[in-house]
């Protein structure tokens, strides 16, 4: 028997600690930080912002800041939902169409002179039903998320067109001012209406809704068992199932949550525009997925943060805005945004257990020379 070497005895005689042998250090805060793609994207965002603010005074104006934060907030809200879905290893392609359906349903109720507190929940309900159908077919029937949500993309858009009678809805009855107020509200306000000094941007209701939802999601992902379970499903679904994690229920809820985020974003957009057309939200899914991926969520599942979803979406908006300000032909936008998606994922890539950047630095500057 090949058991002359007793590992226990070796352990007692005090062999080298594991860190000395493998060179693996226990992950500290700093190590975790530089391994996080969201961290690099935040740096990229800061640098880009600083550069543009230096170059272009109009870019750093409070009005432009207020504009940018409002522009990306709905996308960031949708990206929060997308992040949860992608963490489980799925994808939700239906969100753009769900935006269209939600605004049309809510818009119709407003057109029929229902109060906003009936119309908005009705829109929300329409969105949640889409999410529940997605979730049921994916989690309980076991269909592929790509197929189901691709189908829903088509169904929801078609329903939006049918329900709207292919008309633009804008006569919102007695509650029209309230709807607008919800979508266009700002805080804090400049003088004379408010107390905010001129340099401070007036932040939109979209932005504040995003902050609230991101904080709640971040809390749930970090501190609640359900967050832990989400990551485990993305990491190894079979293992999660065997250890008693309610995998089907959690996957179902992920799609419902995505639809919820989408509906909230849709209602805010409805309020902001004060009108509803069935084409609203077209191709939003791609922009949202782009923001999510840039923020460090891995398409294969298992990794992703609420902060990343927000930062990724913000970066896309800052690039877009910066290009406009710099006077670059708007047809170039797609090329820049596309490059950034690829670049961001490249930055987040791991090479031999190290972030790619660190691997490069180690290669260019070997340890002993530093």
């Amino acid at each position, binding site marked *: 028997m090949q*058991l002359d070497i007793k590992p226990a005895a070796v352990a007692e005689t005090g062999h080298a600690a594991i860190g000395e042998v493998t060179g693996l250090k226990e992950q500290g805060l700093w190590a975790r930080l530089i391994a996080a793609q969201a961290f690099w994207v935040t740096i990229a965002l800061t640098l880009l912002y600083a550069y543009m603010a230096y170059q272009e005074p109009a870019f750093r104006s409070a009005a432009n800041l207020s504009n940018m934060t409002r522009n990306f907030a709905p996308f960031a809200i949708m990206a929060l939902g997308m992040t949860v879905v992608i963490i489980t290893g799925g994808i939700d392609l239906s969100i753009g169409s769900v935006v269209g359906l939600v605004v049309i349903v809510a818009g119709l109720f407003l057109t029929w002179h229902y109060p906003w507190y009936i119309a908005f929940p009705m829109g929300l309900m329409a969105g949640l039903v889409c999410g529940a159908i997605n979730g049921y077919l994916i989690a309980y029937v076991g269909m592929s998320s790509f197929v189901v949500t691709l189908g829903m993309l088509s169904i929801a858009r078609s329903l939006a067109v049918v329900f709207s009678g292919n008309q633009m809805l804008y006569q919102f009855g007695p509650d029209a001012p309230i709807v607008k107020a919800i979508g266009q509200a700002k805080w804090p306000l400049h003088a004379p209406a408010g107390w905010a000094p001129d340099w401070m941007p007036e932040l939109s209701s979209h932005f504040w809704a995003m902050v609230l939802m991101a904080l709640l999601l971040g809390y749930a992902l970090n501190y609640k068992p359900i967050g832990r379970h989400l990551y485990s499903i993305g990491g190894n679904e079979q293992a999660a199932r065997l250890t*008693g994690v309610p995998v089907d229920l959690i996957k179902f809820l992920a799609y419902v949550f995505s639809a919820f985020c989408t509906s909230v974003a849709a209602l805010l957009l409805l309020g902001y525009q004060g009108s509803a057309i069935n084409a609203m939200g077209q191709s939003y899914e791609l922009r949202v997925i782009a923001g999510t991926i840039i923020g460090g969520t891995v398409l294969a599942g298992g990794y992703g943060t609420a902060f990343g979803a927000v930062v990724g979406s913000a970066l896309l908006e800052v690039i877009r805005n910066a290009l406009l300000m710099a006077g670059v032909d708007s047809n170039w936008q797609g090329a820049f945004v596309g490059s950034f998606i690829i670049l961001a994922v490249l930055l987040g890539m791991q090479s031999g257990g190290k972030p790619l950047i660190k691997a490069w630095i180690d290669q260019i500057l070997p340890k002993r020379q530093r």
Partner: protein
Amino acid sequence: MPLLEVSSVAKNFGAIQAVAGMNFSVEPGEVVGLMGDNGAGKSTMVKLIAGNFPPSEGEIKVAGEVCHFQRPVEARAKGIEVVYQDLALADNLTAAENVFLGREIRKGTWPFDTLDKQAMIDRSADLFAELKSETRPRDLVKKMSGGQRQAVAIARTRLSNAKLVLMDEPTAAISVRQVAEVLELIRRMRAQGVAVMLISHRMPDVFAVSDRIIVMRRGSKVADKHTSKTSPEEITGLITGAIRAA
């Protein structure tokens, strides 16, 4: 009273008879090796005990009580833990997170209950120390060696003071030094009164730790012998069918 009693258990999947007429028992603190060729029904037997599916015929008793589990969680509630061949670990989580997956320690009252991360890290560290394994609770499983992963999977079974641990091919995919570590872990579990069923192809490993060896061939038991009263040659003969029964 035996910890586990399997009497005339059979399992068929449609026309395929995977297991037929299985009878055996496992005493507390006993290490039983379950051997057999591919397709002999070992894995089906393990899954029957672990609660992945109920038997078609016969009954399985745990501590004298008839238990026909529908789901693995039910078996776990009765003190039966499984270390799966692929270890069922989530690579993207840390060792402590994997140990407590599905039964996280919480603090606070619903709906404000949160994960008690420190408690889970401390308890995992204790478990790894108890198993004399050089595994740190905060390390990602992705970056661990085969032996460390095995320790995480085994630590998980120690969480609830399991009475019976089923180990499916625990030494199949790891290095020689790590095999020795895993066998040492099994001995340590036995010393603490935990019964272990070791399902393995590797004859030396089974002989090194088992008190008793059960051999299956074509879905039935062909031998149930004390390790001291048999030899690798005899077991090989039984597995291949060169020896009919013993």
